[in-house]
């Protein structure tokens, strides 16, 4: 079986999920070709070999400096000897590229899969739907079978330094319909979907009546002010742990933190090693977005909150008291 793996990168820095995808393809016994597209991306090609690719298809062209799905899809679809399957990470780029490749190659996409097996010459995958409330097993009946893999769902292979292989160069198809003007300031902090540790806050983060807001604030402004004091405690713990900061939909809808932090059915689906939920009761939409976390810790005033049903460890109490203690205790233990 021949599998192409799209090595997703941002300005020459490869996403770890790309290597996870190479690892899965190798584990299926396939001959793996890395697809490396960009401008000045020889290093990414070199890394692809080190992480296990047998060969690399390289398109290195200034016209590919910015990712544009229509340009990248045309370039890949024009390459000869289309394989049995194409794997991509489920990143914003990987998803859109998979979508367009499926149209160009008249085939289907198995999207955001969390497990994969070989049945004869068909890939059978499992993927979460309804944000993880349901798992669906499916296959793609046409070829190539296009699969996007959810990050952190497959082991990342160890690189072998100095391993090399054959590079086949292909020409870029630069006809574009879009123009990338640049980036506004990045959101900053650790990306939720790549994070190994996430500390999240919910509605309860504003629930500290003893905090006296500055004079002259109306009720709504005072609530947001209180929440910001609470989220500062969440952020302090996150920064000691090198963690990303998450939030429940209730906290985002109430205006406590921007939407980019939202975890759940209408936010991001995450799967960290450690998830610490602070003042989150555990609405079904939130649980759907974080239930595959390895270890879940809940801190909540309400001992009956549904979040405790999913948590490995729980502390029933006031997060405004417990979080600073927890941050200090971690600082001491981790020598920070």
């Amino acid at each position, binding site marked *: 079986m021949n599998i192409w793996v799209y090595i997703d990168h941002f300005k020459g820095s490869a996403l770890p999920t790309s290597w996870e995808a190479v690892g899965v393809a190798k584990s299926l016994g396939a001959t793996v070709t890395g697809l490396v597209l960009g401008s000045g991306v020889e290093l990414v090609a070199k890394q692809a070999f080190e992480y296990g690719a047998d060969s690399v298809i390289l398109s290195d062209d200034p016209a590919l400096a910015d990712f544009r799905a229509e340009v990248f899809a045309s370039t890949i679809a024009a390459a000869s000897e289309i394989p049995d399957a194409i794997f991509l990470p489920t990143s914003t780029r990987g998803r859109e590229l998979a979508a367009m490749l499926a149209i160009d190659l008249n085939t289907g996409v198995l999207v955001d899969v969390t497990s994969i097996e070989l049945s004869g010459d068909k890939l059978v995958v499992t993927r979460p739907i309804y944000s993880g409330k349901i798992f669906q097993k499916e296959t793609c*009946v046409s070829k190539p079978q296009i699969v996007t893999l959810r990050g952190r769902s497959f082991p990342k292979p160890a690189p072998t330094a100095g391993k090399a292989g054959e590079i086949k160069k292909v020409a870029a198809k630069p006809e574009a319909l879009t123009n990338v003007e*640049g980036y506004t300031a990045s959101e900053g902090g650790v990306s939720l979907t790549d994070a190994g540790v996430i500390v999240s806050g919910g509605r309860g983060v504003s629930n500290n009546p003893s905090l006296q807001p500055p004079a002259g604030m109306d009720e709504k402004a005072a609530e947001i002010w209180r929440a910001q004091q609470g989220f500062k405690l969440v952020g302090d713990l996150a920064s000691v742990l090198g963690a990303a900061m998450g939030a429940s939909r209730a906290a985002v809808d109430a205006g406590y933190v921007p939407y980019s932090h939202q975890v759940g059915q209408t936010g991001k689906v995450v799967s960290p090693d450690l998830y610490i939920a602070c003042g989150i009761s555990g609405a*079904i939409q939130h649980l759907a977005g974080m*239930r595959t976390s390895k270890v879940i810790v809940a801190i909540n005033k309400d001992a009956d909150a549904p979040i405790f049903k999913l948590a490995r460890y729980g502390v029933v109490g006031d997060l405004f008291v417990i979080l600073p203690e927890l941050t200090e205790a971690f600082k001491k233990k981790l020598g920070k």
Partner: protein
Amino acid sequence: MKIVACVKQVPDTAAKVTAESGKVNWGDAPLVINPWDEYAVEAALQMKEAQGGTVTAVTIGGPSSADALKHALAMGCDDAIHINDPALAVLDTQSAARILAAAVKKIDGVDLVFFGKEAVDGNSGLVASQTARLLGFASLTLASVVKFENGAVRVERATEEGRQVVTAKPPAVLSIVKDYGEPRYPSFMGIRKASKAVIPTWTLSDLGTAAPVPAVSMLEILNPPSREVNCEIIAGTPGEAAEKLVEKILGEKVL
């Protein structure tokens, strides 16, 4: 400007969804317009308000899906088209995209097509880009800010690395994320108008296409593996609880 907003009907996100006898069961939870699609309708209406023109809501689905269109009409869409054909009961994303692309072609002269980021049931997030590819339109996905300037659409896109600014000349397909801003509630007048609206139904023969052959075949619907649910409650004063919790977490070797 001729604008299309594509919407889908889905079970309410508060539904307890389970796999039963190989099927997805959402009990008596209501079917609603896909929450992401409300942002798409909002963005479409704001574009119309700024540039003039019409917004047509389009859905594919059985008889009940007309309610999703009525919601879009009540929000302010000018008209709606219900694509309903028994041959479309099972669709994968590229089949859905082929049908929607055929509808956009039949509507004719469309400048912009709006989608939500994804549907909360299938979570694929592919149909917008696939429809764009089939139509040869520019694809501007995951937009949180949408402007029309100097004859081009300018969007800010939510990517892993920050907000990317991308422009394209119409015709274009856009998908909208929640950062765009809260969708409006249907007005009383809007609801009255929508309840009286006669929504045309298009079948495959109206579209002049054969039923697309799905490339993705669903094999099995499963409940997710159940999680270990023994929660160990850490007791003590806040200081003691914090120390104990740190020991426990370090013992899990997840840091």
